Every structure is written in structure tokens, then in C-alpha cells.
């Protein structure tokens, strides 16, 4: 039972539009005051106080990462720990892990297994259908009672229109969003049933032609979004498009928002920082789904972030073993690690003055909460003391050798910012040495 005081820290709290230097006082798991010039005498009792000199640092709500693949259940706790070190205080995991999250008991199991008040909260999406191409709906209602906060087939799209219509309709009834990986898998050649020799590997265009890799046309994304919007209107569901990556896809979402459709979307750092030219050396760290697109698409993602069409940024974390990545491009696994670079690469947008820091924090915290009907994180009196502390100005460089998960598409990338502390329910889930030395008892 102690107090912690974070002195002279810039508090950025999108929920109350606060961006001001204050002292933040935490008692147990709650913020009890955000005041100017805190004095010890203001407290009623004489319990020990840990005081941090935080001048020059920023406090914001913790990151809510709404797209994390953990691969296997065994990776769960490790992923939580690494997430905490990187400013993530809640994360939502996708159902395409082993075992698949397609029934209420496994949803319950994951949540019990991950329960630890000082580690990031783990939320789960339930699978929409029993298998990726299945025509059978999962027990959405029971999974939802067990805590599933949305439904999706994760890295696969829900393809069959009738099935999607029913899943959407059912999800609308129980007030849960449908999250779609928007890709026409017939067109991209990822539906093995329809093609024998063609399997999309990268964005289609000059680069795919030069490399002799099978292209996925960028319209594979918008085709799916356009159909889904019709079904979303028909069913009234909240429809969320995951990791949008194309100009056309974003344009259609922008228009649907104007038309009043209940639609939201997120993107991931690779799609606003990288383009298809990265693949020219066949580097499998860039083999992602959706694939890295053209430069024009990348610019469209940035515009979408700026004008609010894109609601959130998620890591799209999908760590892969080196064994599956040191392979010829066609044989290599798809995906890259993301939780360790989400904050840094998003801060690059701030550093390049593309968006304000307040906006960046919103994209990573309150907006994801809004999309998934989670409690809006807020740094305010009597609110839960879950927050992060970071230095927004310190130059940083991403080095794959210093990361705990692989691969990263951002090796060598320069940015600004460093997470110094992650507090969950008032407990220091992670404190960097640079912050530790600022503490005095």
C-alpha cells in the first residue's frame, strides 16, 4: 500500500483532451490526483511515497493493440511480457492460433491463462466460422458470454457471402463487431480450391514482374470491402476492416463513413512506412499479408490516418521463427513481429509532423477501445492507474539484434521515442533503468 508520484510529467489524455505538465499521484491501483505542484502534506497519511522526477517525459494511457497473433497458446505469457515492455497494456488476440479460438471453453481458457494483474490484459476475438472456409457459424453468443469481444476469421477472410451475412446479422444481435481481413482469396490465389499453380505472394505490379513472384492485385482488398459494406448495411452490424493497405479500400471506407455505415478500420505500421520496393532483395521479413503495396497506396494510408478515415493503428503482430523465414520467398512464412515496433514506428509519424502526438496516442489507445466497446482509458482522478511513460524526443534506432521476437521489417529504421515505464493497475509492469534512477523514496 504505497503512493507513487510522477512529478512534472506531460500528461496526454485524449479522453479529456488534456495535454499539460502536472504531477500525477497514484495510490494502489488508482490515480488519486493530477495536480500542479503536488506536496507531500496534501496526503492524509504518512505511507511511503515513491517519487519519480519525470520532467521532459510523457504519460499517456497504455496502448491497446487490437491485432496480435500469438501463434501458439504457449507464447501467450511471453508475448504479454514483451508487449508490456513496449507500452502495450491491453491486446486482442486473433483466433487463428493453435488451438483455434472457436469455442467458449478455449476463450475462457485463454483469458484465465493470461490473467495477471501486472501484465497486459488479453482480450480475444472468437472465430466467426468453425474453420476458415467453413459454412458453420461458431457459438458466437456463448463465446461472447465468455468474453469474446468481436468475431473474425483472423488472417483469413470470411468469404462466403451467405455465411458472412448470417454471421454479421447474429453479431449485430449480440452487439459485437465483425472484423474482416479484406482480401478476395480467389483473386489473390490464396484459395487453394480454386487454383492449382497460382498462389499470391506479393503486390502485383512492376516489382512482382521483375522478381518473378506471383502478384496479388490491390483490388483484392477493395472488392471484399465493397461487398462487406453492402452486407453491413443489410444487417446493421458494426463492421471493422483490419489492416487496410490500399487507396481504393480507404476511399470506399471514407465514403461509407459519410453515408452513415457503422464501419471502422485500422492499419499497421508497415502499411504507412514501407512499400513493395522493399521486396527487391527477396527479403522474407517483408512477406506480409496484406502484402506491402505501392508507394501511392502507402501515401493513401497516411492520408487516411490524417483525415480520420483510419481509426486505429494495430501492430498486426505475427512473429515467425527464423526457420520459416530463412527460405526462398515463395516457401517462407507470412507475417512479421510487431509489438516491439508499434510505438516507435507510430512515433515516426509524430516526428515527421504527419500527425500530432495527441492524435498518435488516440490512434493507439482510445480509438481502439471505442471500436471494440472497451472501457475508454483515461488518466483522471479515480481512474485506473494503467498508463505508460515515455520520452518522446530521444532518437532511437530499431536493431533486429536487440529485439526479442523476429522478424522485423523495420531493421535499421530510425525514429524517436522510448518507452520508459508501463504501469498496469498501479503496478510497474515494466520500468526502464532510465526511469528507475529517477525514483526516490
Amino acid at each position, binding site marked *: 500500500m504505497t503512493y507513487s508520484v510522477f512529478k512534472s510529467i506531460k500528461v496526454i489524455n485524449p479522453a479529456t483532451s488534456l495535454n499539460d505538465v502536472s504531477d500525477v499521484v497514484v495510490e494502489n491501483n488508482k490515480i488519486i490526483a493530477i495536480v500542479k505542484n503536488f506536496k507531500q502534506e496534501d496526503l492524509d497519511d504518512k505511507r511511503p511515497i515513491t517519487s519519480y522526477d519525470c520532467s521532459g517525459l510523457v504519460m499517456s494511457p497504455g496502448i491497446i493493440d487490437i491485432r496480435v497473433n500469438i501463434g501458439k497458446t504457449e507464447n501467450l505469457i511471453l508475448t504479454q511480457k514483451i508487449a508490456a515492455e513496449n507500452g502495450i497494456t491491453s491486446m486482442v488476440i486473433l483466433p487463428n492460433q493453435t488451438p483455434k479460438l472457436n469455442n467458449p471453453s478455449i476463450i475462457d481458457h485463454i483469458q484465465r491463462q493470461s490473467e495477471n494483474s501486472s501484465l497486459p490484459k488479453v482480450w480475444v476475438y472468437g472465430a466467426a466460422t468453425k474453420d476458415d472456409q467453413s459454412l458453420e457459424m461458431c457459438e458466437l453468443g456463448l463465446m461472447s458470454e465468455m468474453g469474446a469481444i468481436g468475431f473474425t476469421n483472423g488472417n483469413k477472410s470470411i468469404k462466403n457471402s451467405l455465411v458472412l451475412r448470417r454471421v454479421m446479422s447474429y453479431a449485430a444481435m449480440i452487439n459485437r463487431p465483425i472484423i474482416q481481413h479484406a482480401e478476395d482469396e480467389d483473386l489473390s490465389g490464396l484459395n487453394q480450391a480454386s*487454383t*492449382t*499453380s497460382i498462389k499470391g505472394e506479393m503486390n*502485383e*505490379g*512492376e516489382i*512482382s*514482374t*521483375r*522478381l*518473378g*513472384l*506471383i*502478384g496479388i*492485385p490491390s483490388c483484392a482488398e477493395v472488392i471484399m470491402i465493397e461487398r462487406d459494406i453492402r452486407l453491413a448495411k443489410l444487417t446493421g452490424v458494426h463492421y471493422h476492416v483490419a489492416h487496410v493497405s490500399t487507396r481504393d479500400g480507404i476511399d470506399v471506407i471514407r465514403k461509407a463513413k459519410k453515408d452513415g455505415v457503422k464501419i471502422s478500420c485500422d492499419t499497421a505500421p508497415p502499411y504507412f512506412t514501407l512499400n513493395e520496393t522493399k521486396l527487391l*532483395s*527477396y527479403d522474407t521479413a517483408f512477406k506480409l499479408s496484406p502484402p506491402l503495396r505501392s508507394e501511392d497506396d502507402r501515401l493513401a494510408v497516411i492520408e487516411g490516418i490524417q483525415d480520420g478515415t483510419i481509426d486505429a493503428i494495430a501492430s498486426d503482430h505475427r512473429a515467425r521463427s527464423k*526457420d520459416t523465414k*530463412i*527460405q*526462398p*520467398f*515463395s*516457401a517462407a512464412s507470412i507475417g512479421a513481429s510487431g509489438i516491439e515496433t508499434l510505438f516507435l514506428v507510430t512515433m515516426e509519424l509524430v516526428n515527421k509532423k504527419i500527425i500530432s502526438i495527441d492524435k498518435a496516442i488516440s490512434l493507439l489507445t482510445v480509438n481502439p477501445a471505442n471500436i471494440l466497446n472497451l472501457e475508454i482509458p483515461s488518466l483522471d482522478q479515480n481512474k485506473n492507474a494503467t498508463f505508460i511513460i515515455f520520452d518522446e524526443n530521444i532518437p532511437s534506432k530499431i536493431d533486429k539484434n536487440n529485439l526479442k521476437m523476429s522478424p522485423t521489417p523495420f531493421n535499421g529504421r530510425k525514429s524517436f521515442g522510448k518507452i520508459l515505464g508501463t504501469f498496469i493497475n498501479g503496478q510497474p509492469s515494466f520500468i526502464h533503468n532510465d526511469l528507475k534512477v529517477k525514483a526516490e523514496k
Partner: protein
Amino acid sequence: MNKFLKNNQKNKLYSPVKLSSHHLLSIEGMTKDEIQKLLDRADFFANLDRHSDTKFLPGYVVLNVFFENSTRTRVSFELAARRLGAEVINISLINSSIKKGESLLDTASTLNAMKPDLLIVRHPHSGAPLLFADYLNCSIINAGDGRHEHPTQALLDALTIKRRIGRLEDLKISICGDIANSRVARSNIHLLTTMGAEVRCVAPSTLMPSNLEKLNVKCFYDMDEGIKNSDVIMLLRLQNERMSGTENPSEREYFKFFGLDEKKLSLASPNAVIMHPGPMNRGVEIASSLADDPSRSLIKTQVEMGVAVRMSIIEALNFTKNQT
């Protein structure tokens, strides 16, 4: 000093080309000068009595590692290496280690442990030879990787054309067939455009890759137009699995629109020559009579030139590696 150089100082025939890399992974990225020198050297080998002493590389160990079927390319490389006095070991890994789950990297490090001087690799996946180049200490020749490149084929095609017509500059060369899936087409496009030829690609729209014009070629969907006044017609093999399906309706339809017959050939330049990397599908991409017409078809010369071209490359890679 390199042991091979020492041995060869006495041999007046030894005159290797120096390249900018000790690997041959793709034509894309090679300079006009490098290509020219390799072709000149290959031309020299082609003119040489095949019993001449060209054993410049005694003790040089070549691993011919093929992850895909091949007869002519493998034999051609083997012959080239042997004529240079090298020791050649053929390793066929078709469907074997890949299916057994051994990673390519494990295969690569196993091979590396045998300390070869050169690895000649054919692999069904685009870019695979680059991976070998990253993890092995020896030189690598790409003998065909997926849909990416087949550099030695392009070099031997170029030598064949040069020897027949005398030049590459300003020639009109039509590459016809399944461009989308062809590594031969890509290597030829890069080589011929680098050397100043006008390259035209003719294919059904379903087999024409996206944005091909960006590679400085003209694209045609009508073969008559695409081969009009052409000096060289290069045909590509249509894989069996693509003869009918969603890429192409049927063999007979393909032959009607994209197969080379007398009538279409009459539109080309009067002395136009026909090339094919083999193996041919007679009656699909080419009328049988044309394939066997010695005044037109250079198909057998292509095979012959393969050995000379590969000798010049192996010699050059060894020289380059020991210079760097």
C-alpha cells in the same frame, strides 16, 4: 596467388573475363560491357576445337544442385565444367529434401561444408539462388529460379543470335508465349534491352505479367502484329498444366492464336530465325515443320552454344572470385 592462375600462366588460351560479382544470379544488373565480354569469350570457346586444352581449372569442384528436373541445362553445365578440367558432382534434390522438411538453409550449409568452388543451382522458387549466395562461401550460378531468371539461357540465346546475324543492336526480337511464368523471358528481356535490341513480347493477356512495359518492351496480344518484321522469334514453352484452364482455353486455341506457323512467320522479316529454349511442344507453340527447318530454326545451335557460354561464365566467376 590463385592456384588456377599459376597453372594457367603457361596456357595461351586462358583469358578470363572479370565481372563485378563472383556470382551469376541474374542478368538484371549486369552491364552491357560485362555481357559483351562474356559473349566474346564464349564465341572464342565456340570456335575452338573441342579437343583443345582448356583445362584451366583442375581440382575446381562444381556441385550441380538441381531442385527441379532438367536434362539439357544440367548436362550442358557439366560438360562446360569438365572441359575446363573441373570436377563435377551432380546432386538431384527434386522433391527430396524440401519434402522431407529440411530447410534450404540446412541443405545449403551441408553443401557448404563440402567446400565446393561453385554451386550451380536450379530451384522452383524465385530468388532461391540469392539465399544460397548469402549463406555459402563459393560462387553461385543461377541455373533457373522459379519465374525469376535463367541468365545462362539468355546468354546462350544472345550468342546464338550474334553468331547468326552478327549483332544484337537494333534487332527486332519477339518473345512469344507464357511470359508470365517464364524465367527465360525475363532474362532475355533484360539482356536484349541492355544490348540495344527492340524487344516485343507476345502473349495471351492471361499470360502477360503486370506492367511488363516498365521493362522497356512493347507488349502485343496479337501475334501477327507482334512478329511483324521481326528478325528473331523466340518461342517459350507452354507448361502442360496451363494448356487448358483459366489461363488458356485449349491447346488448339493457343496454337491458332499464338502458335508459330508458316503463315504467321511470313509476316516476320524474310530471314527471320526461330528459337526455343526447349523442350518444345510441337503443334502447341510451334508447327513441327518449322521446328525442323534448318534454314530457320536455331534450336539446335542454342543447345550447342550453351556449353561455350557456360565455360566462359565458370571461368569468369573463378577469376573474379580470386581477384576480390
